[in-house]
């Protein structure tokens, strides 16, 4: 399992990468592995506001449907719509396949660094 050190992670298995004052968000390698093959994603709209700890979309795998939980509060400034046609990118490249970019940040969930997140995942199994 891969835990890049330049990212922060939420306990609901999303990753956050700061790019200036924009937060880039995706799901972790652990998350895609636990989900299994992703077959659909439901994405939010550009311009939507998101709240830390609340759902902003969902991913469906052959096993289950899971909510995507936003690790930050703010306004969505870009959505990776390529995922709609190619949800498998979330499996193939969890850290390359970002889901949304959020600006006007005004709050975040408790985020973990790579080491703490890896330990958290080890506990979760």
């Amino acid at each position, binding site marked *: 399992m891969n835990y890049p050190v330049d990212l922060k992670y939420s306990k609901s298995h999303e990753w956050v990468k700061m790019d200036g004052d924009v937060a880039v968000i995706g799901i972790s390698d652990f998350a895609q592995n636990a989900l299994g093959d992703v077959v659909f994603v439901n994405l939010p709209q550009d311009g939507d506001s998101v709240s830390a700890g609340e759902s902003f979309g969902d991913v469906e795998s*052959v096993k289950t*449907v899971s909510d995507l939980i936003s690790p930050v509060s703010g306004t969505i400034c870009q959505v990776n719509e390529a995922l709609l046609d190619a949800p498998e990118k979330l499996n193939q490249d969890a850290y390359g396949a970002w889901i949304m970019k959020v600006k006007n940040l005004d709050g975040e969930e408790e985020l973990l660094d790579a080491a703490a997140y890896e330990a958290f995942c080890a506990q979760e*199994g």
Partner: protein
Amino acid sequence: MKLIFEKSVPGRGCSLLPACDVEETSLPENLRRATAPALPEMSETDISRHYTELCHNTYGVNCGFYPLGSCTMKYNPRIDEEMAALPGFTGVHPLAPAHATMGCQEVLNLTKKYLCEITGMDDMTFQPAAGAHGEFTGVLLIKQYHDARGDAKRKKIIVPDSAHGTNPATAAMCGFEVVNIASSPDGCVDLEALKAALNDETAGLMLTNPNTVGVFDENILEITHLVHEAGGLCYYDGANLNAIMGVVRPGDMGFDCIHVNLHKTFATPHGGGGPGAGAVGCKGFLAKFLPQSASMQGDGHIQVRGFAGNFLVVVKALTYLMTLGREGIPEAAQNAVLNANYLMQKIRNTFQPAFDRTCMHEFVLNLEQLKKDTGVSALDVAKSLIDYGMHPPTMYFPLIVHEALMLEPTETESKDTLDWVAEVFRKLYELAHEDPEFMRAAPHNARIGRPDEVRAARNPVLRWRNV
């Protein structure tokens, strides 16, 4: 195997119509079709063989053990089919005058009376065609209740995270906002989470009890009290009624409306797409909103289906109710619970129950440890069971348990069968440690091994061929 359309041979057939002894006449030109309907043309021999082959390729309760959790795949007695096949029931027309359908009316009235007694409700409709349709109807009752009182603020339905997926889908379909609340560690409703979610926007709560992990929520009276105190109503999902029928009543737990899967709990073969019946019962104060007959007019009446719904399913339910009777119905529920607990205790030396306590009619195994130790997943175990001539249990549900296998043996299995099942599970547990690769490739003796679920979901081909 080939489809029946592929076996069709032009000109072949098996109907021998007697010679026409009246003058032939045609429909007007504008009512006639230009091309013949695309029906298969077959001899009776070939039709018989076709369906027998299909029969050999399927698996049902008549073939063997079918512990599909949350689905109550019990054996449905033949007598129920025999009663539903009586010409007085099959030949009746829904528009026949009342004096000609007194027997059918009696079936509906009597079934309503018995099911209201079992569920603790005051009135019932048989219109909904199946469970989710029943949920939809029941939640519409809640909506109509708030609408009729002018309480427009109540837009939220609370659903626990262990619920069947149909619950949040139903609430959303009825125009409500779904509020998910997390379960407590024992799989039941977390009272603090419920309290936090309740307010003057709460329209109602949807709940299954016993819940999807097979546990009876002992706080049920407090749960329904809290919801009522906040001004909401309580909806009982009858998915797990088999565990409690004739023993405790949802009406006495504080529920205001309920659906009952007649096809599931009261003996119609199900799982093949219908017909089913999702009878919806309610307390007296909601009865005026209940859909009754499509021929009935009245303010506030919703109609969710034509006439009395799938009537023959009601005939089967009544036959089942009358066959088992006042003593037999609770005994069936008790045996369902006993069988589940017996099997859980026999299996628990190997596979671990997700919630280690007395269960109701079903239990959930958590295979996370096995997967960690051996790499064998819940899916691999489920596939391996097929090689033993057993239908796999429900997998990866409820979502709150990872690597879940959910078993519901039902009351119609003998101790011998349950002992054999426990033995198969023990063998598979050992095999998972000795030869995990073998299990990852299972099933080895089935006609279809592992269909490509990912491709099926991503690129579904929904037509037999492009016509």
